Structure formats: structure tokens, C-alpha cells
């Protein structure tokens, strides 16, 4: 863990949106090379208001409304980073980042490698992702599998207000490109956030045990963390004591924390919204199996979104992993013992 001194003013309950905004504001104030850019990030403050007030405070050159063109936005950010700036790019919605994938995969992820370390690209790409907000199609994709499959990208996702601040600061400070996945249904989640004391910025790549337990480990991240916490509470009625691990970072993946937890509990369930086939859970289950085989009392199971295009809002509750589906899956762990 890295501790950085910050002087934030918020002492009251704060939302994740406010924490993200604060993180950018503090980073911009401290480092004149930090530039925020994207569609509608200026006067409007972004469609989710995450960049609210930044253009006013730092000027349009530091918080820039770009033309509506994702490849252009990310491509221009590459050039800006080549010249020593630290662009923080906002992709308006998960599914609208796809036009920028050529830039992302062919250039952003590879520039350090193809220049033998001479030209790292410190770009943070903020992507509001995931469902649960009643959005229409193209506004709810869980696109993390595409990102984690691309070497050279760091992929992080906060699940709490405090981590939203800390992880975004760490991402902007990173010399590597970071995909910063913002669980949009947690934007308005609140917490007593009073970081007067130096805030703890989690090192990228550090998972956290959010709840200790002995019966099984729920491994999750981002939007599914609150669901898992709720499931763990509900599981007490069944007499199960569930441990919950919040990955916080998908790449790098904190295998040690996960493995240690599963070795303690002997059972594991991976929970995420994105589809199961080829999703991050498949990788995690494989790794856990490789490293914990002799400690496992049951196969590693997954609770994921279905392998379908994101459903219409009126059906999304059937698609997203909920408490019941998690508990049913945990029950299967017991039977297979």
C-alpha cells in the first residue's frame, strides 16, 4: 500500500461519483500534466457528472470537450502522452469504447513494449460499465473480458467510495495505461468518506478481504461486491460463514490473497456480471484450481451474467447475479462435498 498525503475537504457522506471527481481534481491540482478529455466532460461535467466543475476550475485546455470520436479521443491521448502529458480519457459508456479498440489494442497496450521501454503511455481510460441502472442496450455492457485479454493494459475497478478515490489516484499516477472500470450502478452509492487523514491509496494489484469467513470464499469485484456482501449476510441464516474477497484489480491479479483465502475456506465461488464463457471468472477458477486443488472440498463454481447480449432493462434482473443465485450456488458447494 502506498500512502499519499491529500487535503480533501469532504467530511460527510460522499458518493462514488464525488470521490472520482475529487480524485481527478486533486490529481490535476498536483500535476499540471494531467489532462481530462472526452465527450461532454466540459460544461456538462460528463453524462454522469463525474468531471463536474473540472473545466471551470482548470480551464478547457485541461478538461476538454472533444469531437465525438472515440478512436480520435484515444488516439489523440496517445500523442499527448508521447509528449509527456497524462491524459485521463472518459469513454461515455462501456459499449461506446469499442470504436477505440484499434487504438487501445494496437497502440495503447503495446507502445511500451514496441519501443523497448522508451515510450511508456501513462493514460487512464475511464469506462462506466455494467448494468443494473435500467439503461437501454449499448449502455450496460460488462466489457472487462476484452480488456483483461490484452497484455499491456492494467485493469482496475473500484467497489467502494474510498477505493474509487484511491484507485483513480493510483491509476493516474501509473506510468502504464490503465483501464479504469467504473461500476455505474455504484456511482450513487454512499459512504462516510472523510479522508482528512492521508488517504490510503491501494497499490494496483492488491485484493482485499472485505469480510472474513470460514465456509467458502466469494471472489468478486466492482458492481457485484455489494451483492456478495448481502449474500454473505443472508448466508448466516443457512449457517454458512462466507468470506468475501474484492479483487479491485483484474490485471494484475492478486493471486496470493485469493489463494490464501480459498486455502482457508476450502471452497470458492467467483461472482461477476459479465458472461461466464471466457469471462474473468473462468481464468480465476482455473488459477484457484491449479493452486488450491488439495485444499478444495468442491469444484470452483461461478455465478455470472448469462452468455447473452445485454438484455432489455425489464429483464436485466434475471441476467444479473443476485443474492439468491449466489446462495443457490453456494448450496451446491455443500452438496458436492
Amino acid at each position: 500500500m502506498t500512502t499519499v498525503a491529500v487535503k480533501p475537504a469532504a467530511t460527510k457522506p460522499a458518493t462514488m461519483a464525488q470521490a472520482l471527481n475529487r480524485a481527478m481534481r486533486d490529481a490535476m491540482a498536483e500535476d499540471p500534466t494531467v489532462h481530462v478529455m472526452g465527450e461532454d466532460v466540459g460544461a456538462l461535467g460528463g453524462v454522469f457528472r463525474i468531471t463536474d466543475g473540472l473545466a471551470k476550475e482548470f480551464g478547457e485546455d485541461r478538461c476538454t470537450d472533444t469531437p465525438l470520436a472515440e478512436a480520435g479521443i484515444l488516439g489523440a491521448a496517445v500523442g499527448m502522452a508521447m509528449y509527456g502529458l497524462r491524459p485521463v480519457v472518459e469513454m461515455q459508456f462501456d459499449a461506446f469504447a469499442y470504436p477505440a479498440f484499434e487504438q487501445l489494442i494496437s497502440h495503447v497496450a503495446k507502445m511500451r513494449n514496441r519501443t523497448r521501454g522508451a515510450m511508456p503511455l501513462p493514460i487512464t481510460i475511464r469506462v462506466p460499465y455494467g448494468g443494473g441502472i435500467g439503461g437501454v442496450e449499448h449502455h450496460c455492457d460488462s466489457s472487462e473480458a476484452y480488456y483483461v485479454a490484452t497484455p499491456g493494459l492494467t485493469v482496475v475497478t473500484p467497489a467502494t467510495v474510498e477505493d474509487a478515490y484511491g484507485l483513480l489516484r493510483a491509476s493516474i499516477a501509473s506510468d502504464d495505461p490503465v483501464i479504469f472500470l467504473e461500476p455505474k450502478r455504484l456511482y450513487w452509492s454512499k459512504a462516510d468518506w472523510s479522508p482528512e487523514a492521508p488517504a490510503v491509496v491501494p497499490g494496483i494489484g492488491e485484493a482485499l478481504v472485505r469480510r472474513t469467513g470460514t465456509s467458502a470464499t466469494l471472489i468478486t469485484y466492482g458492481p457485484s461486491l455489494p451483492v456478495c456482501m448481502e449474500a454473505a449476510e443472508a448466508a448466516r441464516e443457512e449457517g454458512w460463514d462466507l468470506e468475501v474477497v474484492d479483487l479491485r484489480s483484474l490485471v494484475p491479479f492478486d493471486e496470493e490473497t485469493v489463494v490464501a483465502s480459498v486455502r482457508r475456506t476450502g471452497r470458492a465461488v467467483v461472482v461477476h456480471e459479465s458472461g461466464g464463457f471466457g469471462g474473468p471468472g473462468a481464468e480465476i477458477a482455473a488459477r484457484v484450481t491449479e493452486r488450491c486443488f488439495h485444499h478444495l472440498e468442491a469444484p470452483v463454481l461461478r455465478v455470472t451474467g448469462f452468455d447473452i447480449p445485454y438484455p432489455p432493462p425489464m429483464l436485466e434482473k434475471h441476467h444479473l447475479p443476485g443474492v439468491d443465485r449466489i446462495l443457490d450456488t453456494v448450496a451446491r458447494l455443500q452438496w458436492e462435498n
Partner: protein
Amino acid sequence: MTVQELPGAGASHRSTPPPAWRPRTDAAPLLPDPEPYRVLGTPAADRLDPELMRRCYAELVRGRRYNAQATALTRQGRLAVYPSTVGQEACEIAAAMVLEEQDWLFPSYRDTLAAVARGLDPVQALTLLRGDWHTGYDPREHRIAPLSTPLATQLPHAVGLAHAARLRGDDVVALAMVGDGGTSEGDFHEAMNFAAVWQAPVVFLVQNNGFAISVPLAKQTAAPTLAHKAVGYGMPGRLVDGNDIAAMHEVLSEAVRRARSGGGPTMIEAVTYRIEAHTNADDATRYRGDAEVEAWKAHDPIELLERELTARGLLDESGIKAAKDAAEAMAAALRDGMNAEPVLDPMDLFAHVYARQTGRLREQAAMLRAELDAAEQEEEGDGS
């Protein structure tokens, strides 16, 4: 209904732009001339700078020799592939010559010669094509971006870099190169649009060499010329004879000057021809006839300049020989450099993926290390 009849269409809705909208202040006309601009063989050649033209000549001869040597290296298996710029040397060289030291060049995969003309060591310029590490040089040191293989994707980088430099108050121009086929890509459009909106100090040089691999320009675009594309973005488009290095130098210099002085971007279409095949893997006879190639060979960039300079008494036999000798020396050095077997460390595979290696990569590096050690031990065992 015509466009003019549409509600809200016509001149009036533009007459009171909202305050944030800034019209172009630059007076340069947007539409290109109907014919490619030429200097050599026209009265405009009277004002040529002899010293500059002699330098151009020496560079052209060196560039042609470089092309020949690199092509020969593919035949010897020293290079996996080489996209030749024979016939296009005037574009490549003029692009490098008009830039100041602090300026940046954003080449496409075909533009190694431009990088060499900018001063990059020919061997370093060719590592990508040899199968050695992708970028054989430090881009910051030379201010040459890595040669871009995905078409047109380097163009938004040029815009971003130029924009960043201007934000920092630095006097930097970015010149980005792309082929005629590359102008159909979305990234071309996005880069042009960004550059114009941001009034970024960028020059786009499109080398229209007739073909994108096998596809002729007529199947690539329905625009009258590629230079016309500039108009829609609000930047000047220029059409120039890409085999006329004097014209290329003049038009590029003017665009660089405009960019440097805050006048915004320019798009230049250089009309030229790819004399050789796309690469050594291509069979050009499948899509074009000899007559066309021969006609373009008669419009050779070196001959055009040589004819002009000798007719004006600005170049003689000794000048021609001096240029040839210098080119031969470059070719010999390139041969020597390429004949040396590159030494690659397999462990470098893991060296530059992330600033801090991930656990996963450390594990994989250890696996490869063990494989290499085992192979080495086996070899030693065999030897004893």
C-alpha cells in the same frame, strides 16, 4: 427537396455562430487546384535555390540506393519484408527535409526512407522489417514515432502530440504520413477532424501512389481528388506532383510554416506512383499493366530534378558522381549493419510489458529461463 430547401438549411443558420464557435481566421483557400502543383520544368523553376536543390538531388540519389539495397536484403533473407518507395523518394525526402529538429515525424509502415532522411540510422530504421524488435530506436531521441503498421492509426497520435506541444507553449510541428488507401480508414477522418477543430500544428501528407496493395484509387474513393477531403474539415487541401521535389518542398514548407505560426493543419495529396510491387510478397502484374508503369518511370523524380539542374548548369558530372559515391557508402554501411546477426535476449520478452512486472509474467519468465537453461545444459552435454 434540395438541401437549400430543408428547414434551417442555407446560409442564414450559419450567419450568427454561437460565441464558442471560432471560424477559421487563416486566409488560405480550402479547395485544392485542379491540377497537381509543379515547379520543375515550369517557369516557377527560375526561383529555385541551387544549394537546396543540390541537397535534394543528393538525398534523392541516396534514397533510391537505399531502396535498392533494402530490396536486395529481402532477396537475401536479411529482411522479412520491405515496402519499397522507388518512385516516391521525393515525397519521403521532402517530408523529412522541411522539419526542424524539434518537430515530429509520424511515418506509416512504408516510410522508412523518410525516417532515414530525417537522420535515423538505416539499420535502426529496418529492425521492424528484419524481425528484430519492433522499434529499433528511441522515438523521443529522434522525434520519429514508431512506424505504424495499422493504417492511419498514427494520424491521431500526431494530432495529440502537436496539440500537447502547443498547450505547453513549445514550437513543434507534427508531420504525419499516410497512403491513399489509408485515407478511407476511420482514424484518418477522426484525426483530420480533431486537427481542424483544435487547430493543431499538423501537416498530413497523403502519398497517393495509385494503389492500396492491388486496389486502385478509383475503387478507394469517389472524391475528385484526395485533397478535396480537407475541405469538409475546414483545412486547406493541396494537390501536388509528388515526383517533383521542388514542388513538394515548397508546398510542405508552406504547410509547416502555417502550422508553426498558428494557422492550423493542412492536408497535402502528393500524386506519385509505386514503381515496384507493394512488397516482395505481392504480384503487381495481376492488377496493372507494364505500359502504366513505364509511363510513370518516364516521370522519375531523380531524372526530373537532374534534367532541370543540369540544364541550368547547377549540376555537373562531378556533382552526380559525388551523390552516387555517397549513396554507395551508405549502402555499404547498411549491408554491413544488416549482415551482423542481431543478438536478441529471449528474456526481453517480459522486460517491457508493464513498468512493474506482474506475478503472472514473473512466473512465465521463470518458466522460459528454466527452458533456456535446460537447453544450454543439453548443448554443453553434447559438446563434452
